[in-house]
């Protein structure tokens, strides 16, 4: 025994060994190490050496204290390590949950959310997953893409009981605000592998997170539906109000003129009868145009209709619009400036003719006779720009964008016939083609509308 070193230091070295061992070993191993260290100290250093016997009874106390200190240290070290491991795993859990919830926030509909959840579950738990949601009739339907099979009866039971169920796969309920709205079926890979409790708990958290997001999607959907129905109600009311006013005015003229002609005792001369006849025809045509606009708008806004596109020349569409408005444009001079090498455009012709007619009608309504109306077109990359401009008084002050609002009239309370739907239809029709229309003040004075359409319209 090296005299200078002393037993105390040797005890310390043994304790250090125990401590270092506990850093890496589990609880039982650490305890075993503490005991074996104590025995080794006894065997090698406590006289008589190389024997477990103890000469001096005081050494028993030393050995006892050494064992207790070693055990306490081992225990402490092991619990510290446990805590660190738990903290680490909690952090990992938070990270994977955060990653999923961040992607869930971006997803807008239930399908996308299910896809995000399935993808994350696959990455974190090495499992495949299927998301089942109850539809309006309470029938469970898969909303994620997967070929895995699952037990629909078991899924129904999970929905009914609202509790996790583990068979050959793990069935987790997706809870809504009041009841279970769906089930997520997780199949660990390879098949039959079971997950530790901690992973199962994490899976529960995943399911809860997905359920929350699905709930949010449902609420957003409901809010959107409410907003739409409110907008529709507003549109319907305004439409009814405007139509009843704007149809009644020409109807009054028609009924009045008709009743005049119908009275033989008034003995109207031929000229007067002709005037009344023309008035009736004219007003009836106004009403027809108004009706066409209303029907078009209703179709575009509410119908969710698909485009019936076909290839047309801009020349043809412009010519058709001009032909339809011929009589009303009689006192305006028209300049059509279309390059001969314009490409054809794939559009629904009636809608484009309707846009052009409405713009021409407007020009006829809001400009004095003698005004020049210019129609130009140019192709630029994959877009066709068509403009209808006049050198009249231009737009009323204010934002020209307002002109495209439904029922907005450039000059309210005027005797100009219309319900303020013409430009709203132009915009709706242009948007339907994936294009747009805007109003700008002509550099040289007057109003100018610019229509931009994709050369080949995709249904938007």
């Amino acid at each position, binding site marked *: 025994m090296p005299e200078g070193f002393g037993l105390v230091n040797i005890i310390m070295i043994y304790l250090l060994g125990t401590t270092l061992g506990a850093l890496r070993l589990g609880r039982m191993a650490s305890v075993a190490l503490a005991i074996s260290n104590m025995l080794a100290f006894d065997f090698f250093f406590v006289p008589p050496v190389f024997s477990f016997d103890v000469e001096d009874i005081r050494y028993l106390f030393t050995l006892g204290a050494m064992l207790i200190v070693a055990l306490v240290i081992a225990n402490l070290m092991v619990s510290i390590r446990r805590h660190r491991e738990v903290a680490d795993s909690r952090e990992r859990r938070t990270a994977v949950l955060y990653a999923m919830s961040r992607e869930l926030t971006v997803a807008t509909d239930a399908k996308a959310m299910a896809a995000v959840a399935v993808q994350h579950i696959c990455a974190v738990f090495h499992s495949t997953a299927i998301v089942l949601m109850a539809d309006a009739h309470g029938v469970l339907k898969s909303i994620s893409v997967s070929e895995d099979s699952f037990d629909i009866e078991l899924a129904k039971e999970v929905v009914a009981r609202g509790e996790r169920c583990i068979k050959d796969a793990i069935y987790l309920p997706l809870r809504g605000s009041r009841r279970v709205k769906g089930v997520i079926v997780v199949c660990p890979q390879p098949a039959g592998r079971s997950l530790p409790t901690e992973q199962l708990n994490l899976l529960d958290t995943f399911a809860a997170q997905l359920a929350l997001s699905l709930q949010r999607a449902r609420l957003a959907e409901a809010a959107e539906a409410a907003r739409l129905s409110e907008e529709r109600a507003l549109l319907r009311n305004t439409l009814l109000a405007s139509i009843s006013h704007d149809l009644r005015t020409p109807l009054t003229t028609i009924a009045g003129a008709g009743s005049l002609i119908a009275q033989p005792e008034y003995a109207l001369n031929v000229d007067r009868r002709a005037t009344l006849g023309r008035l009736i025809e004219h007003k009836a045509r106004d009403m027809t145009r108004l009706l066409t606009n209303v029907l078009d708008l209703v179709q575009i806004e509410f119908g969710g209709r698909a485009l019936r596109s076909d290839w047309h020349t801009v020349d043809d569409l412009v010519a*058709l619009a001009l032909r339809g408005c011929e009589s009303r444009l009689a006192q305006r001079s028209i300049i059509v400036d279309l390059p001969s090498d314009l490409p054809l455009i794939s559009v629904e012709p*009636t809608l484009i003719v309707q846009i052009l007619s409405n713009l021409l009608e407007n020009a006829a309504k809001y400009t004095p006779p003698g005004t020049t109306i210019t129609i130009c077109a140019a192709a630029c990359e994959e877009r066709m720009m068509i403009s209808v401009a006049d050198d009249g008084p231009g737009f009323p002050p204010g934002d020209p964008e307002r002109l495209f609002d439904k029922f907005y009239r450039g000059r309210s309370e005027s005797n100009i016939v219309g319900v303020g739907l013409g430009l709203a239809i132009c915009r709706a029709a242009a948007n339907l083609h994936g294009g747009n229309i805007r109003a700008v003040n002509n550099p040289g004075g007057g109003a100018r509308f610019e229509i931009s359409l994709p050369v080949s319209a995709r249904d938007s």
Partner: protein
Amino acid sequence: MTEAMHLVLVFEDDPGIQEILRMLFDANGFRVVMADTAARGEQDARLHRPDVVIVDLGLPDRDGLNVIGAIRAWSPVPIVVLSARTAEAQRLAAFEAGADDYVMKPFSAPELLARVRAVMRRHVRGDLPMGILELGDASIDLGRRVAHRRDGRELRLTPLEHRILETLARQRDGIVTHAALMTEVWGPVRDNTRALRVYIASLRRKLEVDPSRPRHILTELGVGYRLVVDAASQAAN
């Protein structure tokens, strides 16, 4: 005059429109037979052998398209559709069932009369001979396929343009559907709508005084084209 009075058979169930049509045709030297149902009208057609038939598509007992088909099955009498159905597909369906022209409600009386007279003229004279076609200041010899302007300036039409013009001219004042035009010009091979539009645009540039506002080669949206020779009379309508 009496033996020259043409008989028009009208399938129409609305009393107001019946009255207007009766006045219109009475005032213009036609005899009128009114039928307010398809069944009644078909009997009248066999009984009276009308010179022209006007069909409203929305009849109470049967669809007007059906009536057109039934009449076409045994008679080449010209048929003009008078309908509130404005969708292109429905107009096209009427032509495919065998209608000769289509006037949309609300209609203008003089326009309807002009269309009725035009289909009757075409019916009487049949396919036009390959004569000389005068359009504005252009003169086209359809038989020899030569064209020139009245002031002597040269006018060159490609062979395909000649063929399109010929096909339209044979049905002048009447509508030639896209399908019919393409079959005549290219044969029954494929859908050539884009090419057709380009050729029509090119023909207009050569023949129309103002190609941006054509007076002779008119587009009937979704259905086909119509060649109007006497542009002045059309404009008056």
